[in-house]
């Protein structure tokens, strides 16, 4: 379980006068569940890339549980992400030709040897996400099932935080609700901080805190409103 602290963050793209993301000060306690909303182009994706270390940050600091990842090199950020952050993406990014189980353990297998404990955990997670046949080829699953496999994959390395980028956007209503319920329940059971970028109100309603971005700035924060 990791807390998030952002200070003086500013992300710019070459050729654009105003920053695409500018967050002066933001704190998310460990174990919190946060929804990030906003229109497209509001800076949501940039925020995800910055806090997951996918993109280098020029100005400011991003601290996960006190570790400033903006000081890390590219490969250190990759290693930190692999160890501490579980990613769930809109397009699943599962790999056809492999089974559900093989997809769950793929990132670990590409980095090192899969331990027996990890293999057991992968089976347990697939069971918890309701995938009945772990050896089934991934391309034969329904979209809802695919996203649930992706959730199991995100949780394999017991990450301190789960970051989900539009996890329900490409699913139908009932599949979306299942995935939303799963994310909230498993993040609680696994003791992970949860950050979900979404414009699905049904999903954001389930989370404790909501921020809204516009023009790269947090224009609404339910946490601050409560605090105020």
């Amino acid at each position: 379980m990791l807390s998030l602290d952002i200070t003086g963050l500013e992300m710019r793209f070459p050729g654009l006068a105003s920053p695409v993301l500018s967050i002066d000060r933001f704190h998310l306690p460990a174990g919190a569940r946060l929804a990030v909303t906003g229109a497209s182009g509001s800076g949501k994706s940039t925020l995800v890339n910055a806090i997951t270390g996918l993109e280098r940050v020029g100005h400011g600091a991003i601290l996960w549980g006190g570790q400033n990842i903006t000081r890390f090199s590219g490969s250190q950020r990759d290693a930190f992400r692999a160890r501490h952050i579980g990613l769930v993406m809109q397009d699943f990014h599962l790999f056809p030709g492999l089974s559900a189980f093989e997809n769950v353990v793929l990132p670990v297998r590409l980095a090192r040897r899969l331990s027996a404990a990890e293999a057991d955990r992968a089976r347990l997670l697939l069971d918890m996400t309701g995938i009945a046949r772990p050896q089934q080829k991934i391309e034969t699953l329904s979209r809802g099932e695919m996203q649930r496999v992706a959730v199991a994959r995100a949780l394999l390395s017991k990450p301190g935080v789960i970051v989900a980028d539009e996890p329900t956007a490409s699913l139908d209503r009932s599949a979306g609700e299942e995935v939303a319920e799963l994310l909230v329940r498993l993040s609680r059971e696994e003791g992970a901080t949860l950050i979900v970028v979404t414009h699905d109100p049904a999903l954001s309603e389930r989370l404790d805190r909501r921020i809204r971005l516009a023009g790269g700035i947090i224009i609404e924060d339910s946490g601050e409103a409560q605090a105020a």
Partner: protein
Amino acid sequence: MIRFILADLRRFSGGALAVVILIALSVALSVAVTLQERAVRLGSARAAEKFDLLVGAPGSETQLALSSVFLQPAPLPLLSGQVLARLADDSRVAMAAPIGFGDSSFGHPIVGTTTALVATLSPTLTEGAVFSHLGEAVAGADVPLSVGAEVKPMHGSVETGGETHTEVTYRVTGRMAPTGTAWDRAILVPIRAVWSLHGMGGEHEEDHEHHGEEDHAEEHEHGHVDADAPLDEHFNAETPGIPAILVKPKTIADAYRLRQEYRSETTLAVFPAEVLTRLYGTLGDARSLLLAIAIGTQGIVIAAILLVAIMHIGSRRRQIGALRALGAPLRAVVTIVWGELFLLFVAGIALGGALGLAVAELVSARMTAATAVRLPVEFARDDWRLAAGFVIAAALVSLVPAISALRLSPAAALRS
């Protein structure tokens, strides 16, 4: 890792197969050229092994060697029979045998010679016995005639519009063991039968200065052959002319001395091995050219594959970005991209080697069927160096798309 690579290749199996075939064909080309050139060289060298020294009338050295070793039909000028008599009595000569060609039977050359040459080619016969009368013949290993069969000689060959000699019918009395030379296709008969058949009974010799086609027109003189006459393998000044004499000198020094002695105004002496070595020089040049073309083709193929691979990486930016976002280390991504292409290369090289070998075997088999000269297709130590070179080149070339994958930022890759 390897499972992921294989699953990935299965997904693009059509393209992967095309790449493998492309590589295989280009590799097969150079393998076939290398193996075939070696096969021709080894095969002809072995075919010439038993022909130490050839003596003929002045003319083309190459033609003398090719006609005698490979029984290539060509009009050769005749050599005076005295030379044969002189060589037969020479103390430095272990064996001197006349080689008289010109006739054929169903495409098989009929060669007039002596029992000594039969013994040289095939010390023991697989069947029957050597000829002992003028009307008898010994068949080469590849001649489809059984002992007891009859052979009607045809002057020249069917292709050159020859006519059948009606004066004699040879009876096959024996069969030689396979020698792996063109002589496996030949039918050997007593030289005196050939002379008689062509009306060259010694005293008629002057009428036949040339054994060429032109003076054997329809009106040419036909002698009578007494099929039951015994052999006479003693030659003297009255001996008629012959196209070539095979000489087995007793020592190497004798061989050089004899060659020196018989290179004169009236005779020509050659080591067939030497003539062939000269021809190999030309063959080697042809091989170098073909090999250069083959390697050039490989260059084009590699360039085409690199283009495909880099375009393929471009279309897989998202997948690669996702792998990295999900925590796959950079080295894993590089290994996957490199490994996939390298695996295709190795498969292509292996397949190409097998294909090249098969082509060389096929060509050799067809050439052996046509000429009876065995062309051994075999690998040499150098080939493994070439194969290792191919694999190393493949490993290096596969790095190119891997490095292009390295430069992708995961965030940018995911966004595209």
